[in-house]
C-alpha cells in the first residue's frame, strides 16, 4: 500500500513571478516520477521548492518525511564537496541517519561506515575511495552523488538531471541501482530529465510542464 510522502497543495513556484502555478498532487512511496518539459520552464525551480530550498509563491508543500535525512537532493551540479574524498562525500549521506545529538566532529558509527563502503562498492568506485572528488570524471562524480543518496536511504530522492552527461553504460548502472532503491526500500524518486525516452521507460508517472501548468500524463 503506497504511503503519501509529500503533498503539493495549489502550489505556485518561481522567483518573482510564478513559473508554474496551481500544482496539486502528491508523491507516494515506491514510485518514480519524471518531470519533463522544455528548458527554462521551471522544472528545477519546482524541484527546489519541493526540497524546501525556495519558499513557495502560493500554496504549500507538505513534506511527510523526517526533516533529518528524509529527503535526498542531487542538484544539477551534483553538490559534491570537491576537495574531499569520495568516502567523505558518501559519509555525508550516512551522517543524516545519525541522531541529531551525534556531534559533527565524531566519526560515524560502525554500521553506517559499513553502509558507506557498500554504497561505494555498489556504484563501482571503490578504487577511488580516498581520491578527492575533483579529480574524478563527470560520470564518476555522478556515481558518487548516487552513492551518497544510497548511503542516506532517504524516503524521497529529488534528482535534477542527474543522468546528465553519463554514457550508456553508466546510465544503465545508475538507473538499475536507483530503481532497486525505489522498489526495495519503497522510497520515491522525483527526477527532472532531458532524456525523454529514458524517463518514459522507467517512470511510473510523468509530470509534463507546459505553459506554466503541470499535467500528469501516462508514461
Amino acid at each position: 500500500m503506497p504511503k503519501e510522502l509529500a503533498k503539493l497543495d495549489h502550489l505556485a513556484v518561481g522567483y518573482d513571478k510564478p513559473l508554474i502555478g496551481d500544482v496539486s498532487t502528491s508523491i507516494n512511496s515506491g514510485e518514480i516520477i519524471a518531470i519533463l518539459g522544455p528548458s527554462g520552464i521551471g522544472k528545477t525551480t519546482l524541484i527546489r521548492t519541493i526540497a524546501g530550498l525556495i519558499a513557495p509563491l502560493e500554496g504549500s508543500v507538505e513534506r511527510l518525511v523526517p526533516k533529518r535525512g528524509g529527503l535526498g537532493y542531487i542538484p544539477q551540479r551534483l553538490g559534491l564537496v570537491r576537495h574531499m574524498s569520495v568516502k567523505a562525500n558518501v559519509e555525508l549521506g550516512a551522517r543524516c541517519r545519525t541522531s541529531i545529538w551525534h556531534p559533527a566532529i565524531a566519526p560515524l558509527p560502525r554500521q553506517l561506515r559499513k553502509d558507506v563502503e557498500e554504497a561505494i562498492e555498489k556504484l563501482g568506485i571503490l578504487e577511488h575511495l580516498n581520491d578527492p572528488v575533483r579529480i574524478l570524471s563527470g560520470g564518476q562524480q555522478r556515481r558518487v552523488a548516487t552513492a551518497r543518496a544510497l548511503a542516506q536511504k532517504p524516503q524521497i530522492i529529488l534528482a535534477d538531471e542527474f543522468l546528465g552527461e553519463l554514457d550508456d553504460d553508466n546510465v544503465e548502472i545508475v538507473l538499475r541501482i536507483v530503481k532497486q532503491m525505489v522498489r526495495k526500500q519503497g522510497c520515491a524518486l522525483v527526477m527532472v530529465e532531458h532524456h525523454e525516452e529514458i524517463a518514459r521507460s522507467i517512470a511510473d508517472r510523468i509530470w509534463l510542464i507546459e505553459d506554466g501548468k503541470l499535467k500528469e500524463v501516462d508514461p
Partner: protein
Amino acid sequence: MRRHHFIIAILALVLLAWMTFLDVVGDDWGRLDGSLDNLVIFFSESIWPLDWSVLDASPPCEGAEGFFCSPAYTGIIETLKMAFVATILGFVIALPLATLAASNLSPTWVSIPVRIFLSAMRSLPSIIWAIFLLIFIGIGPVAGIFAMALYTIGYLGKLQYESIEGVQNAPLEAARAMGLKRSETSLHVAIPEAANHLISQLLFMFEYNVRHGTVLGIVGAGGIGYHINNQLKFLAYDKAAALLIVVFIVVVAIDMLSMYIRSFVTEEGDVKRPSWGTVFLPAGIAARYHHKKSTQDEEE
C-alpha cells in the same frame, strides 16, 4: 567602462588626493626644505656604520653561547614564537566565529552580531590591544601574544567568512535539503570547500603577526621590538638599525616560505600538485611525484 574613462577616473582621484593633502598640511610644511640634509647627517653620523655587536653574546644566557645568546637571536626567536602561538590561537577561535558570521551558513540574526564583534576586534590595532593588556598582565611576551591573538581573531575571522561565503552553493544546498545540522554543514562541507583559502590566509596571518610582533615589542610586549626600543632609548641608532635589518631578513624569509607553501594550496597549485602528501617536499621532487602519478592516471 572604456579605457579613457578609467584613465580620467584615476587622474581625478590623484587630483582629489593632492587637494586633500594640501588641505591637511595647511601652511605647516615643517622643515621639509632641509629634510634631505637632515637625513644625510642623521644617516652618516648616527646609523652608518651599523653596529653589529647586537649579534654578539650578551649574558646572562642559559646554555647558549655566541650568536645564540645575542639580543638579535633571542629577540627574533621570541617574536617568532609569539607570532606562531598568537596565529594558531586566533585561527582556532576565528574559524567557528567565521562559520557563524557567514551569511550562507547562519541566519541574519546570528551573522550580523558576530560580524559586529569581529569588526570590533579588528578596529583596535594589535598595538592598542597590547597597551591595554600590558596594564592587566604587565610587561612581557604574554601581553604581546594575547594582543596579536585578539587582532588575529578580528582580521582572520573576516577573511575566513568571506571565503566561506564564496564557496559553491550546490553542496550547501544539497546538505541543507538532506537535513544536515549547521555544525555538520560547516565542518564537512563549507570548511573543506574553502580549505585552500583558509590555509593561505593562515600563512599570511603568521607573516603579518611576525611583522607586527616587532612593533609590539616597542611598547614592552616582548620580542625583538623590546631590544630595538632599548637601543632607541640610548640613542644607539646604529644598533637599532642592525636589529631592523635582522627583522627585515626574517620577514623576507617568511614571505618567501609562505609564498612557496601557498603555491601548493591555491587552485592553480592544486592542479599542479594534487596530493597533500607532497606539500612539504621540495618542488623538484613533488613535480616528479606528480608527473609519475599523472602518467599512471593516463594509463588507467
